[in-house]
């Protein structure tokens, strides 16, 4: 049995405390009135800001009609939008613009909280999918890692509940992350009004609870059968696990897709991409596999998991490499079609990101594609823990940036910054994740010894 080392427990708690303080600082310093927001902006940006901001298509709030025109202007001619348009509208725009910035600044700590909460939840959901695939495929190489995967999916329920609570708080208008939740906005917006059959609060929350219940039920029963198999004399539990895993995967790919529209894409309710479900899936899958590799290497370095050899690490490295490339394929497919067709209501999504988020947007491609591609390409490097850890940390941070890029542009526009609140949010959920996952690891032996494929897995070598 594994015991949660005190050092790691203290580290996790320290992360949570520091992260909590960071988030609290973010919430306290967020402006509570339009005047405060104005002051903050004046002190940090100086003048000239209004000009650069007027043409920015940050999809938010009630000035949607004016916003739509500024977008098409911009698509036609950027020069025109910034000089002519901004100069003409500066006077009457000022009031609504100030309120716009106020909403963005008050969204900032919420968005920092939501990005981190969703990111760590996404890791455990990705691991659950990976685990389900191993079970359904009756994989021979991976049973030695089952307990690590089950430990990580232990975060699914608490993490998911936190995300749903944040969504419910948005629904109570404590923040403006989801503008379609505001009836005032919907009343003036034909496009969102047309989507209310799907995007309405009761149905939205009911879906969220339904999804989380489904995933948690699979996780609960799969873990139960896995533990029961340890002591069993026949393989009936293994077969049950195989069956529910196959069923779960069907349920998962549908619900994960709808979840990504709901929880991420609907932050920008005017924009849509049919590839989005797959894109979020690739992101969670690769971060999940990376988390498995990092935790496995950590446990092995502490003298546990002596039955895991470097061929298992090699296989995880192959998955990290392959799914990183898969993620890039989807990222680029989504980008290229929208870039090529250049339809204003679609291309605004990438214009915001390239103009206001240039560094995080392209930096993320370097972290999630170019770095792992070059580091993990060599077969021998995939067997060296040092390389896997290095690539893994970059991949995890890169996919945090990915979620950041998915959520922030619509939530805070060009007011983004990776500051105290954002780092605090990341550290808080990292601490919580470590705490919950390692607590779960102590609850069962680290070797699922009853698994019928265990022998094959222990002898596995490439």
């Amino acid at each position: 049995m594994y015991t949660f080392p005190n050092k790691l427990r203290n580290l996790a708690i320290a992360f949570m405390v520091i992260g909590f303080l960071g988030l609290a600082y973010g919430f306290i310093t967020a402006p509570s009135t339009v005047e405060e927001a104005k002051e903050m902006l004046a002190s940090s940006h100086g003048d000239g800001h209004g000009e650069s901001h007027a043409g920015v298509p940050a999809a938010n709030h009630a000035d949607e009609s004016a916003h739509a025109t500024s977008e098409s202007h911009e698509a036609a001619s950027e020069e025109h939008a910034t000089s002519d348009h901004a100069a003409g509208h500066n006077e009457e725009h000022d009031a609504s613009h100030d309120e716009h910035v106020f909403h963005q600044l008050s969204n900032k700590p919420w968005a920092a909280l939501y990005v981190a909460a969703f990111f760590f939840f996404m890791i455990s959901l990705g691991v659950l999918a990976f685990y389900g695939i191993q079970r359904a495929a009756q994989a021979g190489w991976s049973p030695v890692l089952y307990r690590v995967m089950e430990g990580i999916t232990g975060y699914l329920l608490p993490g998911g509940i936190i995300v749903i609570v944040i969504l419910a708080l948005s629904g109570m208008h404590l923040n403006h992350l989801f503008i379609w939740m505001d009836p005032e906005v919907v009343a003036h917006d034909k496009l969102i009004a047309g989507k209310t059959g799907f995007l309405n609060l009761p149905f939205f929350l009911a879906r969220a609870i339904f999804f989380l219940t489904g995933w948690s039920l699979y996780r609960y029963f799969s873990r139960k059968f896995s533990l029961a198999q340890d002591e069993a004399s026949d393989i009936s539990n293994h077969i049950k696990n195989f069956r529910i895993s196959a069923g779960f995967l069907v349920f998962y790919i549908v619900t994960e897709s709808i979840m990504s529209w709901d929880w991420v894409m609907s932050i920008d309710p005017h924009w849509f991409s049919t590839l989005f479900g797959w894109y979020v899936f690739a992101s969670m899958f690769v971060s999940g596999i990376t988390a498995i590799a990092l935790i496995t290497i950590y446990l092995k370095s502490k003298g546990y998991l002596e039955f895991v050899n470097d061929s298992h690490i090699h296989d995880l490295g192959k998955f990290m490499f392959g799914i990183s490339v898969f993620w890039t394929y989807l990222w680029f497919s989504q980008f290229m079609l929208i870039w090529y067709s250049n339809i204003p209501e679609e291309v605004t999504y990438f214009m915001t990101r390239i103009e206001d988020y240039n560094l995080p947007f392209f930096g993320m491609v370097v972290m999630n594609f170019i770095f792992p591609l070059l580091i993990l390409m060599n077969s021998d490097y995939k067997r060296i823990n040092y390389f896997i850890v290095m690539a893994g940390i970059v991949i995890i941070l890169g996919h945090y940036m990915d979620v950041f890029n998915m959520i922030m542009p619509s939530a805070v526009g060009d007011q983004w910054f990776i500051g105290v609140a954002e780092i605090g949010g990341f550290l808080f959920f990292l601490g919580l994740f470590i705490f919950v996952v390692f607590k779960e690891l102590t609850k069962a032996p680290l070797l699922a010894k009853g698994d019928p494929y265990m022998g094959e897995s222990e002898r596995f070598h490439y």
Partner: protein
Amino acid sequence: MSNKVVHALYDDDDVLLSAVKSIRSEKHHIEEVYTPFPVHGLDKALGLEDTRIAIMAFIYGCIGLSVAVAMINFIMIEDWPQNIGGKPSFSYLENMPAFVPIMFEMTVFFAAHLMVITFYMRSKLWPFKKAENPNPLTTDDKFLVEIELHDNEKALTALLEKSGAIDVSIIEKPE
């Protein structure tokens, strides 16, 4: 020097693997192993050097990428400038997303084809080449190990028979 060799025939890949290990541990020199399909782990058991084709694949891929970039730049930008996706910028970089599929495909094309050609050259294979295979059974379901003979006929034959060979024969190799 004699050019006599021993041909030992096996009918199972697991037996072959353990036989190869025991032959090598007795310090006999294995010339070649003929198998009807690639046997997993045989390269390690034979102590062969790691293949360097992966390095060549990377280089070939880089060549393919460069050829693609040069080719598209000439075709789409220089020779006959094209208005791509309604964005007549006539710059390679600004139109780069449209070229990525071609860059990718050419990378794969060059890497794959040149790797196959390299493999044929390194294996000394070319069209109409006469097969070197000493026993047609190895194209069906048997495995053949060819070992150099140095006046140790008896010991070697005994070892091979012990290791599970179904047939051991001594062949005079034509020069």
